[in-house]
């Protein structure tokens, strides 16, 4: 009755049942290229982090799945199933004309950064646009950490920019601009962060900026 729906980068994602409701069960796979001691440790740490930050950011108004159960030793989390489309698919299907979704993505990143929470993997497959109300949910908090450093926040924005530029080049400028408008609205240090993003790009290998 459990069904595998995704083989993600780190985890296998199942649709499952939890006390009668349909849920997502995320199970971090053991990696063949990690040594055993490293493997157990990393999967445990990332499961703990993900559970902690998914719950924490809710307090600031960032939308994340409800967590029902978490077992760091097995590397698994049972959470709310967000029925919707990933930002990645929304962009690929050219449904990104109106900027509300992108603005919202930026707004949520801004809220997190203003509370010194760095997502760590803000790629377009880690945002889900819920079907019924169009709200933007963030998932996949295994690489999330706390930091006040401008550089760490700038790297986070750089990661987002990198994936838009490489995976969605057609609308890169438009997308990034709208996300940044949302980001700047909720985070008063955004100008400083964006300057640092440019600096990171200049440091990039063979950059000609």
């Amino acid at each position, binding site marked *: 009755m459990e069904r595998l729906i995704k*083989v*993600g*980068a*780190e985890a296998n994602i199942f649709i499952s049942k939890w006390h009668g409701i349909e849920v997502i069960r995320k199970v971090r*796979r053991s*990696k*063949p*290229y*990690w*040594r055993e*001691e*490293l493997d157990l440790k*990393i999967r445990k740490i990332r499961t703990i982090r993900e559970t902690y930050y998914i719950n924490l950011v809710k307090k600031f108004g960032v939308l994340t799945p409800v967590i029902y159960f978490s077992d760091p030793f097995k590397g698994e989390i049972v959470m709310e199933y967000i029925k919707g489309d990933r930002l*990645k698919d929304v962009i690929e299907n050219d449904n990104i004309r109106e900027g509300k979704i992108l603005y919202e993505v930026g707004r949520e990143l801004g809220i997190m950064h203003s509370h010194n929470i760095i997502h*760590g*993997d*803000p*790629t377009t*497959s880690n945002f889900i646009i819920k079907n019924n109300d169009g709200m933007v949910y963030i998932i996949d908090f295994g*690489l999330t950490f706390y930091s006040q450093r401008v550089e760490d926040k700038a*790297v986070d924005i750089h*990661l987002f920019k*990198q*994936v838009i*530029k*490489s*995976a969605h*080049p*057609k609308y890169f400028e438009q997308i990034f601009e709208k996300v940044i408008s949302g980001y700047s609205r909720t985070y008063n240090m955004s100008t400083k962060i964006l300057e640092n993003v440019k600096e*990171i790009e200049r*440091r*990039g*290998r*063979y*950059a*000609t900026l």
Partner: protein
Amino acid sequence: MNKNNLLCLGIESTAHTFSIAILTEDRILSNVKEVYVPPPGEGIHPYEAAQHHIRRAKKVLDTALSKSGVCMKDVDVIAFSAGPGLGPCLKVGAVIARTLAAYYNKPLTAVNHAIGHIELANFFAKTVDPVVVLVSGGHTLVSSYLMKRWRIFGETLDITLGQLFDQLGRELGFGSPAGRYIEELASRGKRYIEMPYSVKGNNVSFSGLLTYAKNLIKKGYSKEDVCYSVQETAFAMLTEVTERLLAFSEKKEIILTGGVAANSRLQEMIKSLCRVHNVAFHVIPSEFSGDCGAQIALVGLLQYKSNNVIDVEESFVKQSWRIDEVDITWRD
């Protein structure tokens, strides 16, 4: 022109290696190289490398021609590595290419060295739409193709794998490139020492690992164990970001290319990943993993066939030149 049997002569001259290859679209006729080796314990001196290339150029050219059994007048197009790389070295290749093009009245085409690593690997493996893992002295990145460009999804935020090995090698008294020595020492390592593991999104960072490893060497830890642990850690980081791109892009094949692709432990790790995701694994033949003329000649030929040539007057070299700035004129 008969576009099937075209001959391209390619000149590689970005760093240590000076190499000339002659090939057609389906066969490499010759691939001759001379490698500058700095004194043990030292890094590359760009001007000395350039001097080395100048001294060896004639011999390399003559050998490439005689091995391929063709003469200059049969060649249809001349390609050179225009970047990225060390200025003095790049200039040697460019001058020779311009001279040959002008003297023999041949078209000239400027090739991005890293695109050469990617396309030469694709040439051997006959891949269709792979995730590319490019690991060398100049590059450490994961890429896939979209809309006329090889897109960079992740890369090193500081030094490359090649630099990590060279700088560690220097600490151990080896000349660069030191990858082979490190691999050899690592194969005799027994104890795994935990080291800094740094993955940011799809990017990796090796400078913390390098500092950590150098300190262990200074403290007298076993060289074998340190090399072993550095390899295990650095390759695991790279394999993790490769897995991230694989999951994100949903591609069905991976190709490993560049000088460090010859490392068998790295191959093993990427292979283990391919088994989990049930995708095909390819690696460039080790003979062609290091810098060579063939990577330049192949891309030169593809560029020429898609009318991507330049005038001698605009044949500049570019020390900095990212792969995602190169228009891939021969792919859809």
